[in-house]
């Protein structure tokens, strides 16, 4: 076998807490790019593949096709049926995970050094030669339908569906990528083959590899595994037109605790103010016990077990979301407190102390993410999908540090829209009804 490393570039990055992540960009002889971190101390490799577009590439009228197709990749490939494939995987002690979302299809693999070639053969079969055998299609279809039926009774899922329907118009984001019972029941084997061709293509592929493998070994492996993928697939979706109406939407559901999902337009990850917004969100509702929302809603008033806000910069829309759950007779108060905090931060920004603590948290927590081969592979794939430079890890905390009090105050004023929030409430909330935000 012949191989040439067309390009190999290595960057050594010092993480704040002294960790070093040495990323090498490997381009295979066939032109496939991967970011690699060599970690020879344990004899296995973690590999993360992502195909941009994911379930948003469902063909019109075929909602759920990509999701069902993804579920079938491990249910028979090449000359192996579903159980033959599973037995082969067990016989290698490897693990392959296949997952799909609105923005990408992800494949997470790990395999031992000693049988790497066989594992790659098996993984290749699942990606390039899935059989979509009729009995497997029916079996996995029933599993998907079971999941959809469960979602129909899940308060969080009901809230999420309603919010998406309100916010995203006719974009794929407006509906669940799992499809509906009707759309999934109608999918044919041909639809799955078409979804496979639409999504798994080289022009939307990103690869991260961490483990016991050299660049010289990885190059030909990439070509063997991925070289025969088609060059291109379905065209990417358009940007969504985000149009979130202000107000409250109540979905009547007989359960003791109401769930509220709230949101407003957000900020794209490549926005120059994204780090200021990240710092702002950390202070407002970023998930730690110290956030303003946790302090006011949980610690001071005991209204909930958890309340969070989070920026959602997706590929085709950016929103700013939050979540809280409170007993039916307390959810109205929880929502009132959240709105007050939203308004207060919009008007006043944050304090010097809050800014300092949020920065120390964000910069200190960053290296904690690099805790294992698979997490690092995922981080590297995420960086590539965002178009970040290979030395980003070393500069990321500087961008957090550069955020000033004035930046946060300005971004809070521009971004936070307390009168524009939409609260979707699922439950039997006392004192809340569908309509404009309460006075």
């Amino acid at each position, binding site marked *: 076998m012949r191989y040439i490393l067309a390009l190999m570039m290595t960057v050594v990055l010092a993480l704040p*807490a002294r*960790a070093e992540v040495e990323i090498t960009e490997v381009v295979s002889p066939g032109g496939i790019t991967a970011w690699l971190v060599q*970690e020879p*101390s*344990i*004899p*296995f490799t*973690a590999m993360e593949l992502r195909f941009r577009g994911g379930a948003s590439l469902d063909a019109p009228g075929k909602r759920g096709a990509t999701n069902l197709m993804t579920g079938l990749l491990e249910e028979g490939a090449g*000359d*192996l049926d*579903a*159980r*033959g494939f*599973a*037995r*082969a995987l*067990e*016989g290698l*002690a490897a693990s392959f995970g296949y997952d799909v979302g609105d923005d990408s299809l992800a494949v997470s693999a790990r395999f*031992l050094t*000693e*049988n790497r070639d066989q594992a790659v*053969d098996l993984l290749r*079969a699942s990606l390039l030669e899935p059989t979509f055998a009729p009995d497997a299609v029916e*079996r996995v279809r*029933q*599993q998907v*339908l*079971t999941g959809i039926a469960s*979602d*129909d009774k*899940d308060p969080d899922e009901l809230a999420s569906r309603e919010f998406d329907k309100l916010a995203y118009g006719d974009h794929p984001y407006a509906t669940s990528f799992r499809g509906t019972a009707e759309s999934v029941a109608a999918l044919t084997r041909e639809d799955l083959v078409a979804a496979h061709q639409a999504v798994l293509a080289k022009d939307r592929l990103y690869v991260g590899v961490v483990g016991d493998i050299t660049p010289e070994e990885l190059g030909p492996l990439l070509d063997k595994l991925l070289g025969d993928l088609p060059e291109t697939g379905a065209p990417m979706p358009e940007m969504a037109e985000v149009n979130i109406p202000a107000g409250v939407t109540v979905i009547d559901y*007989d*359960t*003791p*605790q109401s769930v509220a999902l709230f949101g407003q337009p957000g900020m794209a990850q490549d926005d120059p103010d994204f780090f200021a917004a990240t710092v702002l969100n950390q202070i407002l509702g970023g998930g*730690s*016990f*110290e956030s303003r929302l946790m302090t006011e809603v949980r*610690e*001071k008033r*005991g*209204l*909930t*077990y*958890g309340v969070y806000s989070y920026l959602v910069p997706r590929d085709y829309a950016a929103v700013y979301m939050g979540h809280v*759950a409170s*007993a039916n007779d307390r959810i109205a108060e929880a929502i009132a407190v959240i709105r007050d905090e939203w308004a207060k931060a919009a008007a006043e920004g944050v304090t010097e102390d809050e800014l300092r*603590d949020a920065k*120390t*948290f*964000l*910069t*200190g927590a*960053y*290296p*904690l993410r*690099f*805790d*294992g081969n698979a997490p690092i592979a995922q981080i590297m794939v995420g960086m590539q999908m965002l178009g970040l430079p290979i030395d980003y890890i070393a500069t990321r905390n500087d961008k957090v540090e550069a955020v000033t009090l004035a930046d946060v105050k300005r971004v809070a004023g521009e971004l936070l829209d307390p009168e524009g929030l939409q609260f979707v409430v699922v439950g039997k909330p006392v004192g809340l009804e569908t309509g404009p935000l309460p006075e």
Partner: protein
Amino acid sequence: MTHLRAVMALIAALLPMAAWAANENVTTFELENGMQVVVVEDHRAPVVTHMVWYKAGSADEPKGSSGVAHFLEHLLFKATDNMAAGELSATVAANGGRDNAFTSYDYTAYYQRIAADRLGLMMKMEADRMENLRLTPENIETERDVIIEERNMRTENNPRALFGEQMNAAQYLNHRYGVPVIGWMHEMQALDLDDALNFYDIYYSPNDAILVVAGDVDPAEVKTLAEKYYGVIPAEPNLPERVRTQEPPQTAARRVIFRDPRVAQPYVNRSYLAPERDAGDQKDAAALTILAEILGGGTTSYLAEKLQFDTQVAVYSGAFYSGVSLDDTTFDLIVVPGPDVSLQQAEDAMDAALASFMKDGVDAEQLERIKLQLRAQQIYARDDADGVANRYGAALASGLTVADVQDWPDVLQAVTADDIMAVAKKVLRIEGSVTGWLAKPVEADQ
């Protein structure tokens, strides 16, 4: 793809035995006051996980105050003599770390994950709240509302969780494992300051605690720090021996039918009372661990073959067993019926499959594949120092020793087909079981 099958047959022989020899870099010792210490070294990143496990969980609560172990876990984030309420978490966050805690039947644990050079600060604060908690009546009222909302979220809003509570309550005739960790709602509502303090005073003591430190640390340095911060706390002389009311012989099969309009997908759950891993005696538990894989460990399992491939009775089937428990645990089966299959039909098919398994016995190739994966698991586990830390903490808090944890992989590898069938015969007794249906309301049935 024709080469795949031929290749697979060879793989088992390829995995060298040396590659899976235990290699967890674990050091253990005990402080003079009786606090156990486990250090797991992983120098790949300058990060440390610091955990303190108390050998006190919900099964150690006094009758009538269910949920107090978990309530106290929340209250440990309030003020001490030396820290304001919330200061510990705020300090962890301000140092770029994260922290949390969790409660189970047999233990309550607190942890922080942070840059390795902050270990001393973590110990200082954790030791402080082991000894110096200062609770107020206001803490009690607000935090009680929080745990009630937590129960609302985890249990009251979730019919599967409500069903699970009923299953457990029916399984245990006399043991505290029949009471939910988070507590029964009516008892949670009555928890007060004295309940919390009584539990705290007895159990939050160094001779009832295990310190686990995993990450980029030197065991000698950990020892010096542990002696400085934890070593000075006096042992609790009145720590009771850990003896709980035990199960009598179980002699009657029980049945639970839980109906709720929020049920989307009905299923059958069968649980059998089963032995746990005991110190120096883990053989039956090892055989049960492998039995669960054989019966319901995924696509290649026996139940999947009978219920999902040979027939389409089920859309999902599974078997579950975890041997880490102080007292008798359960071995569980779950069957989710396919379309147009009733719960009764699903249960009957499950029982028929079990009966045929008892006749067919263990498939030798399947057993080999499972053992191979267990060996490989030890290679993958080295990528996860936190996982190792959790494994030691949970085991030591559940009556096992460091030697038991280190022997476990070999005990698993030594399990034979005969061991598995013997333990299956012993444990899968209908008289020791609960059969549960999670169902829709009657009027929604066909």
